[in-house]
């Protein structure tokens, strides 16, 4: 039964991964001009282009090209960056890890903020706190992350000087955990804001529904105190929903992280993608898109599997 469910999901994910690879491969075909020129840059010599055409099978049918590309990609060979002349993989991996750090910090902030404010709003629905938080949720939900980032930079980096405005470490003598954490605060808050807003809204709705159910009314009638009611009676029943809500947010969070990295010059995959697009570094663009989409698919798979597991456990108990 469990094995069956996992196999079913895996088959779907396998097809999705195939589709993702086709789209990423296709990005190269849509790039303006000749593929070899796009990959090697305008200054490349004719002999170098001819060599690359031979290697990538550019004179062969498109299906053959796809499988050659897929073979190279699966072996970690994404080609060479025309900007840095490093291997694309060597460019992408360290930046990917920096992005994971930023996105994880943002996710933690979004969850803590979203769940606590959501529960607090639901506890006294219609009260002053609820109305204030609902209005803030609307505003932050409509706020572009790049702009929020600049507003935070203006106040907390340029005016109050609490946090640095850009980068991940100090230029000289930085790089320890404290330094990185200091640089992480503003970008993480920026990337978290929109997700936190949506989590507040959905957690509030889920809690309101649970708080209106019969067993909560019974518990309340028995005289269970309200905070105990929230934490011990309502929260466990909301957990699967809350987890699902957080899973649905990851796409927004990753999108927000991409913009945030550009604003704060955070050396992550979003900034790399941005520079690669401006510099027409097609191989790097492909690798960035592939890395981000792959991690998104795998995270979603993990969330689905955990949800299945929780749902089964709930049914058993």
């Amino acid at each position, binding site marked *: 039964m469990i094995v069956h469910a996992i196999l079913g999901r895996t088959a779907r994910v396998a097809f*999705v991964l195939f589709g993702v690879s086709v789209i990423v491969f296709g990005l190269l075909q*849509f790039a303006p001009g000749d593929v070899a020129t796009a990959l090697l840059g305008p200054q490349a010599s004719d002999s170098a282009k001819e060599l690359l055409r031979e290697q990538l099978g550019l004179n062969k049918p498109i299906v053959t090209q796809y499988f050659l590309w897929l073979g190279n990609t699966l072996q970690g060979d994404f080609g060479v960056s025309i900007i840095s002349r490093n291997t694309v993989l060597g460019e992408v991996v360290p930046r990917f890890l920096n992005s994971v750090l930023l996105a994880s910090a943002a996710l933690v902030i979004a969850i803590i903020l979203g769940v606590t404010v959501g529960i607090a709003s639901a506890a006294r629905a219609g009260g002053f706190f609820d109305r204030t938080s609902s209005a803030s949720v*609307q*505003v932050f939900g409509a706020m*572009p992350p*790049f702009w929020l980032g600049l507003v935070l930079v203006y106040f907390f980096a340029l005016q109050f000087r609490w946090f640095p405005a850009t980068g991940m470490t100090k230029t000289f003598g930085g790089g320890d955990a404290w330094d990185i954490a200091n640089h992480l605060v503003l970008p993480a808050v920026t990337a978290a804001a929109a997700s936190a807003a949506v989590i507040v809204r959905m957690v509030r709705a889920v809690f309101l529904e649970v708080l209106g159910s019969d067993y909560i009314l019974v518990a309340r009638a028995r005289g269970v105190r309200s905070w105990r009611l929230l934490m011990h009676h309502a929260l466990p029943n909301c957990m699967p929903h809350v987890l699902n809500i957080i899973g649905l947010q990851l796409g*927004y969070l990753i999108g927000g992280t991409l913009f945030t990295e550009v604003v704060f010059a955070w050396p992550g995959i979003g900034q790399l993608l941005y520079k690669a697009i401006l510099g027409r570094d097609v191989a790097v*663009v492909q690798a960035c898109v592939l890395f981000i989409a792959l991690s998104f698919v795998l995270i979603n798979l993990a969330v689905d599997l955990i949800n299945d597991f929780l749902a089964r456990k709930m049914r058993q108990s």
Partner: protein
Amino acid sequence: MTAATNPAPLRPKSALSETMARLLGDKPLVRLLICLAVLVLVAVLAPVISPHDPLKAVADLSNMPIGSDGLLLGSDNQARDLLARTIYGTRISLVVAIVPTVAATTLSVAIGLLAGYAGGRVDAALMAVLDVFFAFPIVLLAIAVAGVMGPGLLTIMVSIFVVLLPYITRVARTSTMQVTQRTYVEAARSAGAPAGAILVRYVLPNMIGPVLVYATTLIGLMIVVASGLSFLGLGVQPPTADWGAMVAEGSGVLRGSPHVTFVPGAMIVLTALLFNLIGDRLRDLFDPRKGS
């Protein structure tokens, strides 16, 4: 006198006029729609109401503060009138969000109708393809499309269109499937009506409501995404006034003249907020269960 006592004519009201009456009877929604109308008027009448040419340096100095002489919102980093640029920016923002949404909704309804009605393998194939698109966070997909196409107004519209298509199609398909199960469709089918006629006459009018509401709820987000593409330099090119690009230009003078960044950004927030509120209200009106 007789008019008051006469019963209303027994002609059934059309679904359209009934819907309109319901929409216009809702005061909060009407208020929001008036705000939207004002915004659209600002965009349409930009050449009339704008105090200056948005592309020319009109101020004595660049980065003049809000409330400078003759310049309500001051000037930007190239001594252009910030108010004029903000007014003209309304045009791009509205066009870039609304045109692709309308286009994507039209195509989505067509695909959703066919897949939802045909079912079986056609439907399964469609769902598999949609799954692939859902594997990309929307901002990533938008950036990737815009990145390969090269900057421009058309680029932004195409990438917003591509981003929206899978989401609206999914809703159109679900809505079609629900309508297809109703008895009147079953009746028309067993009476031997051709599939095309059934789709257009019975399924389309009944499946379209939820799709339109859903598409409306996405416009606000699309304004934010489109402004992000402009911010990255993938949208209309300078010197055209565009809020996202204006924020990017302003970020260079953030320390001394934050208003050059803050004003266009605030307009993005307000516009997206307006569309979000309209979308939420429509959803609450037509599907009270989903409201939060």
